[in-house]
Structures are given as C-alpha cells and as structure tokens.
C-alpha cells in the first residue's frame, strides 16, 4: 500500500518535543489510573463483603429464623468456604496479569480474573436468594413459639400470599438495583477490554 509505505519512510523521522528527565521523575511518582487498578479495588471490595457476610453467618445464631439445622450448617460452611476459595483463585489469577505479556494473554488474564469474582458474586447472590426463599417458607408455614407455647399465626392464606409477594418484590428490587450498579460499573471498566478481546478471539475461529 503506497500511502502506508510513505508513512513508513517518514515514521522514524517524526520529531516530537522531548519530555524532560525532570518530568519523567515526576510522572513515576504519580498513581496509575489503569482499568486493572479499578477492577482490583472493586474485586477486593466484593471479596471483603463476601468474607464479612460469611463471618456474620458463622457468629450469628439463626434459631429465630426457624431454619432447619442442615440448612444453617450448609449456609455457614458455604459462607466461609466460598470466600476463601474465591479469594485464593482471585489472587492467583491477578498475579498472572503482567504488562509484558502479549496483548491477547494480558486480555485473557484480566478477563479471567474478573470472571472469578463475577462467579463469586453470582454464587453469593444465589445463596442470599435461597436463604430468603427458605426463610420465607419456614416463617410462613411453621408454627411460632411464644412463651414456650406453640401458637399458630392467626392470618389467612391470602395474607401469607401478600406478605410473600411483598418480600419477594422487595428482595428482587434490592438485588436488581445492586446488579444494575454492578454491571454498569463493570460495563464501563470492561467495555474496551471486552471489545479488543472479542476482536482477537474472532481470529481464532
């Protein structure tokens, strides 16, 4: 291509005003604004929140929720194990992010790191949804204990239904709002990366 070859000839003749050593010294003291830095910060917040919720589940007795013991044990174990496993996976993947890798490898590693935390968040949200569903089920169907006596709530099926609906809608709105902010945030950070990754990946097809 003639035009490109012309540019090739002039390419190294381009003179650009030099940045002084003094300015370079100043620059290396500045903080990076890279997308990876922000992805790391957000992922850390997600993992820490996950760990805190796991610890809360461990130390907080749930007897008042009338949940069966098998469910409490499962949720407690999951609440502790999942953040630990995913924190390990996250740091292992994060260590692989290296600016001297090839462009495709770097994109692969960033996206893999991000996917690990995405999986973690989805598992946590699923756990919350399961907990809400079970709590709702057991609270509405099991008799409640008042002063060591068993009493049955004096409400009708219609009331149960309305209460369940309100709780489900409320939970859905809260989770939906969280997901919206979450995907919006990641959407902005990952848009460029995903686009470039897709373009390189298409070559392999």
């Amino acid at each position: 291509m003639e035009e490109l070859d012309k540019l090739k000839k002039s390419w190294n003749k381009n003179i650009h005003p030099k940045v002084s050593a003094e300015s370079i010294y100043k620059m290396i003291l500045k903080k990076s604004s890279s997308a990876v830095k922000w992805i790391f910060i957000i992922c850390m917040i997600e993992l820490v929140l996950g760990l805190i919720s796991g610890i809360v589940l461990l130390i907080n007795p749930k007897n008042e929720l009338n949940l069966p013991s098998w469910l409490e044990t499962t949720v407690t174990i999951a609440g502790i194990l999942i953040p630990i496993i995913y924190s390990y996976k996250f740091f292992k993947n994060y260590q692989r992010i290296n600016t001297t890798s090839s462009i495709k490898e770097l994109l692969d590693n960033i996206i893999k790191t991000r996917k690990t935390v995405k999986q973690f968040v989805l598992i946590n949200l699923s756990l919350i949804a399961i907990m809400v569903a079970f709590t709702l089920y057991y609270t509405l169907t099991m008799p409640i204990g008042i002063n060591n006596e068993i009493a049955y709530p004096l409400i009708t099926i219609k009331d149960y239904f309305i209460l369940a609906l309100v709780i489900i809608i409320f939970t859905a709105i809260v989770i939906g709002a969280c997901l919206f902010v979450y995907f919006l945030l990641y959407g902005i950070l990952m848009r460029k990366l995903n686009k470039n990754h897709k373009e390189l990946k298409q070559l392999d097809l």
Partner: protein
Amino acid sequence: MEKELEHSFVTQLEKHQNIIHKVCRLYTNNQDAHNDLFQEVTIQLWRAFPKFRGEAKFSTWMYRIALNTAITLYRKSKRRVQTNDIADFNFKIKSEEYDDTEEEQLKLMYAAIKQLSDIEKALIFLYLEEKNYREISETMGISEVNARVKMNRAKGKLKKILNP
C-alpha cells in the same frame, strides 16, 4: 539502590521516549490525552522495570508495555503531571525533507489509522516499526497466519478509508 534504579530508568526512557510518543499519537486525539497516556505508559514501565532483566532490548520491552497500556489499561485521568515539554501536538518531519504535500498526505494517513480498531492500530504500528510477522504475532499473542490475515484486512480497510 532505588535512586540508581530510578536514574537508570529515567535515562533510558528519556532516550527511547519516541516509541511512547508514536503509540500515543495513534491512540489519542488531542494533546491532553497524549500527555495522559504518555504518563500512564511511563508509570506502567516504571512498575515493570525492576523485573526488566535486559535480555530483550529496552526498546523492545517498551513496545509491549506501551501497546498493552494503550489497548487494555488506559483510562483517562485528571492526575496528569503538568508539563510544557510536549507543547506542539503536530509532528513535523525533519526540516531537510520537509514537504507540504507529503505532510498533508501523512496527516490524512494518521486520520485514517485513527479510524481503525485498537487491535488494527497495534498491527499497523508494528508494521511501521518494521517488525517481522514473528515479532508481530508474539506481541499480539496470535499466530503468524492470523497476524498476516489481520494485517491485510487492516491495510484493506485503510485503503477504503483513503479512497472511498
């Protein structure tokens, strides 16, 4: 030790800074963005410098980090070092070969390259830097065959932009 490392880094970067400027010119559209990307590349290079063993040439090592920063890491920042060093965004060809028509054509060429995708720009950049297909495929992380295919497509796209 840190001071020595800093000095060695700054000296080498000052010498090879044209590579960063060339990347910045392809990936940014104005002076501010140019300076901003220049700073981010410098930060990324400095972070990676302690691991630079000198097995590759400093300039070769810079290509990867500069391209990786432009393509994957770069986000606009307001914390830029205010410098007047880069005062003129318009590049000039050395005066002895200065030619108005040539410069006009080059401007059009740059404008056309800027319409390409980030990946295509990287390929064109490596082509202009006279890298062979083995080096291009290694830098991009794709096979040599795919690098050739993608390069031909990028050139075709440029031709179409320049001769609609």
